[in-house]
């Protein structure tokens, strides 16, 4: 498939103003980001409006701006509606946005760090580790610090699981897709079994049900008092990863090549693993293990903006936020008055996506993580 253009003679090639192409890329990515930000605003509005009680979007904005102190509209809504929008729906919608954004950037970075397109916190058992940590705190009742200790335990569990999967999957300095996914599945299975064992042997009827529901991944049960922690984790995560975007790019070239371009790969990976476990742990503690967001979003985003992490990360963050807000709207409404755990819905989309990704890589014959 070598095109005839390669037969151009060697020597001083004609200098073409190539910077133009680059600027176009940057311009389109700025447009993409703006469009996604606007879409996020629309999505959040929809998330606040849609539900068992329908609140018109105009009224949603009235309530929100009123609460923010702007009094440019007549308060023509009932107090019940204000409660629904501000205290019931708003924390939940924001948690959805924050969790979607966080999981998407974690997936993006993880795929670069283990150099494998199938990497994702849920598939690699990282979310299971986080769940086990969190549940252990609930069951053994050491949760004296509330959400913070829950998150801390989830972080520890996530980091443990990630290191275990990484160590198991890595042979001779390489990670093959098959070993990675199999290690993830096996370790996730063991961790989930331990978690189930913990729940079944604990004599706490109602609490067990609540925890079981939580392990399916759901955004309910959040309130303004607990939202700050996942919000902070995602903000920190996106910020640090953006700063490290160049280094994440280097890993795409391979570990040796990254070293020759100035990256201390082992140290960088260790630091990133801690950061990613921290974000995953906090998000799992808040919303349960929600799968496939971290798998789907990075790949979809790369189709549009290419593979440079300086563009992928912010785009994936916004895209993940939009995606999970809508997934939660669907979770609340498709089987109303029953509520479907949002993790079930993301798995419904994500499973087929995973299969498509696997087949695409096989077709391309370029799954060079396998080499």
């Amino acid at each position: 498939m070598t095109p005839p253009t390669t037969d151009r003679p060697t020597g001083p090639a004609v200098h073409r103003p190539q910077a133009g192409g680059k600027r176009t890329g940057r311009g389109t990515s700025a447009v993409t980001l703006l469009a996604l930000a606007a879409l996020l605003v629309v999505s959040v509005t929809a998330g606040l409006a849609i539900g068992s009680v329908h609140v018109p979007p105009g009224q949603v904005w009235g309530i929100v701006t009123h609460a923010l102190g702007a009094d440019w509209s007549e308060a023509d809504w009932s107090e019940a509606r204000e409660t629904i929008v501000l205290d019931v729906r708003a924390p939940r919608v924001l948690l959805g946005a924050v969790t979607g954004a966080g999981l998407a950037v974690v997936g993006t970075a993880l795929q670069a760090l283990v150099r494998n397109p199938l990497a994702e916190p849920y598939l690699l058992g990282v979310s299971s580790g986080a769940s086990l940590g969190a549940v252990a705190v609930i069951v053994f009742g050491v949760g004296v610090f509330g959400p913070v200790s829950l998150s801390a335990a989830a972080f520890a569990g996530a980091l443990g699981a990630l290191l275990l999967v990484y160590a198991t999957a890595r042979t001779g300095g390489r990670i093959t897709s098959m070993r990675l996914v199999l290690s993830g599945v096996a370790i996730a299975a063991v961790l989930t079994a331990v978690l189930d064992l913990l729940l079944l042997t604990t004599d706490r009827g109602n609490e067990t049900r609540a925890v079981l529901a939580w392990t399916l991944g759901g955004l309910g049960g959040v309130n303004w008092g607990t939202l700050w922690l996942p919000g902070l984790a995602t903000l920190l995560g996106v910020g640090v990863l953006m700063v490290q975007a160049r280094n994440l790019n280097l890993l795409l070239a391979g570990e040796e090549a990254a070293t020759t371009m100035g990256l201390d790969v082992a140290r960088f990976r260790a630091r990133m693993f801690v950061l990613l476990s921290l974000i995953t742990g906090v998000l799992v503690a808040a919303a349960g293990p929600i799968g496939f967001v971290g798998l789907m979003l990075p790949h979809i985003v790369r189709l549009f903006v290419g593979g440079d992490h300086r563009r992928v990360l912010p785009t994936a963050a916004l895209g993940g936020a939009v995606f999970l807000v809508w997934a939660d709207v669907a979770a609340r409404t498709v089987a109303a008055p029953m509520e479907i755990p949002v993790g079930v819905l993301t798995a419904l989309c994500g499973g087929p996506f995973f299969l498509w990704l696997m087949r695409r890589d096989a077709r391309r014959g370029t799954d060079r993580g396998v080499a």
Partner: protein
Amino acid sequence: MKATNGMKATNGMPATDLALDSVTLTAGARHLVKDVTLTARPGETIGLVGPNGSGKSSLLRAVYRVLRPDTGQVLVDGTNAWSLPVRQLARTVAAVVQEPGADVDLTVREVVAMGRTPHKRLLDGDTPEDAELIESALRSADATHLAARPFDRLSGGERQRVLIARALAQQPSLLVLDEPTNHLDIRHRLAILGTLRRLPATVLVALHDLNLAAYYCDRLYVLHDGEITASGPPAEVLTAPLLARVYGVTAEVAIHPRTGAPQVTFVPGEPLPDRDGGPGVSPHRV
């Protein structure tokens, strides 16, 4: 000795003095490289030749800081390369390694732009100067026309040229290359080696093709079972007895009248079997 070419942007870079001092590398109990001493003076092009498994790649890994020597030192301008931060070394030493990259959605220009990383702080954007260096590197590797193409759709030879461009964009004063002409057609072999030879930087290159090594390198080191068995100008190193000892092949070496470089012709040990079963060259196949 080094001609100048159109490499404006890289002309300013200084050349580095490289010295390997009794370097020994092991993998487990096995010696990969044993007590190797090698020098490259600023601006020299040094060829590393030897059979498969003789330790060429391992030795290069020690220079670009991936494989730590068990004993001995890698001295870059007199400083132990392993005592420098990775990033600082990467501003002096660039490498073209034999390693498949991940399957990435990057354009060729983005791949070459990676080479600028050691010169950038974390939040620095790409400056017009970076863009100029990237274009210049692409030109030197004859890859300008590939710039906008997706890297993972290129042929093996095109990729190799892009990786060389990436190393050039790093503005190294020492360039280390592991079999850079693999996958390249003959025209691009000559072009790339010519480019390397004209670089002001010091170049250490592992090569399989002895005739190319003889023509393009100032001096050669021959690795055999992890040890240096001969070194010096190509005409002194590439002799029939050495090739017999190191590669186990019969060869004739003559100075080529036009290039002035030693030219190795291999003579197969046994004559090819005649299709009719007899020895010698079959007349109807000539």
